């Protein structure tokens, strides 16, 4: 076919081959350009992006939880402190077989059924990758045994953790409260308040009491260790460290010894007591009996203990001082008397003749006095010292419910006191408007009558009664009760006072206040309703007794038969301050089923006054009180 010589043919072939070589070279150049273009894109154009990603790859932030602040009483006695202990913890996702692992661990160290129940409850509340404690406060021996067997137990770890110890015991539980493990609800609220970042690395959060209300001060600021980690997440070295800032220590107004005295004075009665400094509002003692052991809650309580605490008819988890609401009864009388004077409805010398009952005009219904035969001739001072009901029935009718409500409201009744604890009840100060709103019914005149002696719709907490008494003692200055007086900066170690809050000043004519005070002093003098409780005191006391029917804490149905008799008795109330010439302490006491205020409540207040004003302890408790001060 081809006519060309073989040589010519070869030249043509060679020329074609060289052409193809050039095409090949161009192809290679194209590929090389693609590679270099890609390199330019990654290494020059996108360099910033990738260097950042490489950094976030290698650097991880490990949170370092701060030490929680301590809680100290006014004398520096520790109420809540930290300690480090070894904990046995399990991560479900890392165990091959959870049940087998638990059995294995149970063979090595003792796990109580309670610990196991608590573990299962925590497990059900947490995610698969969360670490859940099985047993805390391991002994050195247990740590050694577990360490030796660790290789056989994937997902099982022994960790050093900070714990909270409440060495002051059950009596302080309602004040200090407790911390507990952070749950989903806590996490949600932390997220909503933008504090979530500060809790990375924290296991606990304040749940009740001061631990809850001062959480932000006590917790401190979480630090971060900047670690270089490899691809498997193992820390290679520390790059930098932002150390955690410990929480602030809190110093209370409260005196742990006084608290112990008050608690002891209750004997086997239940109830609540609060003692205030009338000038500052500082809470000197706050007792709610029964208490409970706050240490049970720190690492999660087991379900059965929780159930028994929660369902106990004695309701140990309820802070009676803040949340127990009772009709104030006769303890309202000094304030009613002051209202009568201030509103011009009564003069100090105005007297009535008490026949033992009171009837509204055009009505045959008789409102009776607690003393059937009546008190005879009664003026304002005597109406207080004798606790004359008829005097106050008339006063209430003459004053009318509207003026009564408005005057009493100035003293904070029907309103939260603003104490630095959460969960306070506001009680109830009845009014026409309130009844219409709540019950859609008009106010009846008979309701005004019984309101005059603190019965009917009236509901107050012991704390509210104490603030009323404080205002009578300090001349109308409305101070908010405060437990914490100062916080210590963890870095400078300087105590910074936390200023109290004065909500206002009720203007009271001094001569009116003096009459009422004299009436309250008469209560404690021979012939007064609580004279026995003041006998032999080296200082003078002004007080008022009262009784309250059982309302508020709903508990009647659960009492067992053996306690039935006591259960039917009224709650005993008592408010008082001392010394009268320069009041330093105000007390409100509520004794559940205590019968009369003078019989059970006033002696408790006396014990508190004695210790606070003279340092005298009840004779039978010298040693107990000392041990609480360690």
């Amino acid at each position, binding site marked *: 076919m081809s006519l060309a010589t073989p040589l010519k043919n070869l030249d043509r072939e060679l020329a074609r081959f060289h052409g193809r070589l050039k095409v090949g070279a161009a192809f290679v150049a194209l590929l090389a350009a693609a590679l*270099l273009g890609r390199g330019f894109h990654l290494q020059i154009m996108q360099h910033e992006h*990738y260097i950042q990603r490489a950094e976030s790859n*290698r650097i991880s932030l490990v949170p370092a939880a701060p030490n929680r602040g301590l809680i100290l009483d006014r004398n520096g006695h520790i109420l809540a402190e930290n300690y480090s202990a070894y904990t046995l913890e399990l991560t479900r996702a890392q165990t091959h077989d959870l049940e087998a692992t638990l059995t294995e661990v149970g063979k090595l160290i003792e796990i109580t059924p309670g610990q196991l129940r608590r573990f299962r409850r925590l497990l059900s509340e947490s995610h698969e990758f969360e670490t859940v404690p099985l047993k805390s406060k391991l002994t050195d021996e247990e740590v050694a045994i577990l360490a030796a067997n660790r290789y056989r137990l994937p997902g099982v770890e022994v960790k050093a953790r900070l714990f909270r110890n409440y060495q002051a015991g059950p009596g302080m539980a309602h004040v200090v409260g407790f911390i507990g493990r952070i749950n989903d609800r806590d996490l949600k609220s932390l997220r909503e308040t933008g504090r979530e970042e500060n809790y990375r690395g924290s296991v606990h959060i304040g749940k009740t009491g001061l631990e809850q209300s001062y959480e932000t001060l006590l917790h401190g600021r979480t630090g971060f260790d900047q670690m270089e980690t490899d691809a498997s997440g193992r820390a290679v070295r520390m790059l930098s460290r932002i150390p955690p800032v410990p929480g602030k220590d809190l110093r209370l107004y409260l005196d742990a010894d006084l608290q112990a005295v008050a608690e002891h004075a209750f004997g086997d009665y239940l109830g609540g007591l609060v003692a205030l400094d009338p000038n500052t509002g500082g809470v000197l003692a706050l007792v709610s009996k029964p208490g409970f052991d706050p240490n049970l809650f720190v690492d999660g309580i087991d379900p059965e203990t929780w159930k028994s605490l929660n369902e106990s008819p004695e309701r140990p988890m309820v802070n009676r001082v803040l949340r127990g609401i009772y009709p104030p009864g006769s303890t309202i009388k000094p304030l009613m008397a002051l209202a009568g004077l201030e509103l011009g409805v009564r003069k100090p010398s105005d007297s009535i003749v008490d026949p033992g009952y009171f009837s509204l005009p055009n009505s045959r219904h008789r409102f009776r006095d607690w003393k059937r035969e009546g008190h005879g001739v009664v003026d304002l001072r005597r109406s207080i010292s004798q606790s004359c009901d008829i005097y106050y029935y008339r006063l209430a009718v003459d004053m009318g419910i509207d003026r009564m409500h408005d005057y009493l409201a100035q003293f904070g009744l029907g309103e939260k006191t603003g104490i630095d604890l959460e969960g306070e009840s506001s009680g109830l100060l009845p009014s026409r408007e309130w009844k219409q709103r709540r019950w859609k019914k008009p106010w009846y005149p008979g309701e005004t009558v019984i309101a005059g002696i603190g019965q009917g719709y009236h509901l107050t907490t012991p704390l509210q009664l104490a603030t009323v008494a404080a205002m009578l003692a300090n001349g109308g200055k409305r101070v908010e009760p405060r437990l914490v007086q100062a916080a210590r900066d963890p870095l400078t170690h300087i105590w910074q006072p936390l200023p109290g809050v004065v909500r206002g000043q009720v203007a009271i004519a001094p001569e009116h206040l003096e009459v009422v005070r004299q009436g309250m002093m008469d209560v404690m003098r021979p012939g007064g309703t609580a004279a026995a409780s003041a006998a032999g005191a080296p200082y003078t006391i002004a007080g008022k007794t009262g009784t309250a029917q059982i309302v508020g804490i709903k508990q009647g149905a659960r009492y067992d038969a053996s306690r039935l008799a006591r259960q039917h008795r009224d709650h005993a109330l008592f408010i008082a301050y001392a010394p009268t010439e320069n009041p330093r302490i105000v007390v409100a006491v509520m004794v559940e089923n205590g019968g009369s205020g003078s019989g059970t409540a006033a002696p408790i207040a006396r014990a508190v006054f004695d210790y606070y004003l003279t340092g005298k302890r009840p004779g039978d408790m010298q040693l107990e009180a000392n041990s609480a001060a360690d």
Partner: protein
Amino acid sequence: MPRTSHWIVRRLSHLDGILLTLVVALLGISLAVVASASGQSPARISGHLVNIGLALTVMVVMANVPPHILSKFGPPLYVAGVVMLVGVALFGEIRNGSRRWLNLGFMAFQPSELLKLALPLMLAWYFQRNEAILRLKHFAAGGAMLLVPFLLILRQPDLGTALMIGASGFYLLFFAGLPWKIIFGGAALGAASLPVAWGFLHDYQQRRVLTLLDPTADPLGDGYHIIQSTIAIGSGGLFGKGWMEGTQNQLDFIPERTTDFIFAVFGEEFGYVGVIFLVGLYLAIVARGLVIAARAPTLFGRLMAATLSLNLFTYVFVNMGMVSGILPVVGVPLPLMSYGGTALVTLLLGVGILMSVATHRQLNKT
């Protein structure tokens, strides 16, 4: 003694100085990067040195085999390779879901490796034999020789290797003068049948391609390798983080970093400047190879030299493209850089052939 040294000098005279310099430069860089990537593991470094020594020896030997003798190995190697591929299809061991390995009793062997050289050798031998009477039917026969191993390897399934071997066969046909009409026609046909071919791809192959298109879709699975290697390269910047200073490398973020992903380590520690230099070295080898092809006295030499040169750069492109995220992840090492004896020996065997073609010019002129 003088006799021996004379013999050695004669053997070494078949080495091409330019190629040798370039290869040694690359191997030196490789040694440094493997040392860094392995955390200066003595086992890795000495293993690499042994591989380099072995591969260089093979290169020297191949450089001394004259091309006309080499060409005679074409048919038997090709036939043996194809037979073994059939054997693999029938009796092969399954590893990682594909049938690629043949158990020879004393060692497991991938016949597809053998074909990387055997197919070009066979085709070059075939075209040399029919040089004077080259017609279209010879290209058809060559295409058939290409397709048989290509389809057998594709069936294993090993798309990456099939494409690499297919490419080497195609280069040879191209340099042998495959008409442009057929090239363009075939390309058009291939593009048209792409959607159909997609359907024939295995799930994992489809996934690899999809992963390339969007690596973040599967950041912990297939996408992880690409994401980490692009982060490494990108974070290297213009001058790199410095030898042994790459955090992606030193902290284990780059997978397979002494072997397939060694380019990520290099890019991180030596930067864009290093990448330009490295690509430049490869281009220099290709350029030298093409010059040797242009000067080769026989068709066999020309075809082998040109094909091997382009083939080498194809491997470079596929590897770097994969590591920098523009090509799917296929298990292709970076020529002369990655740790691994088989690949290095195969490559330097090819370079030896190039040198043989270069230095046996005058001897075979007639």
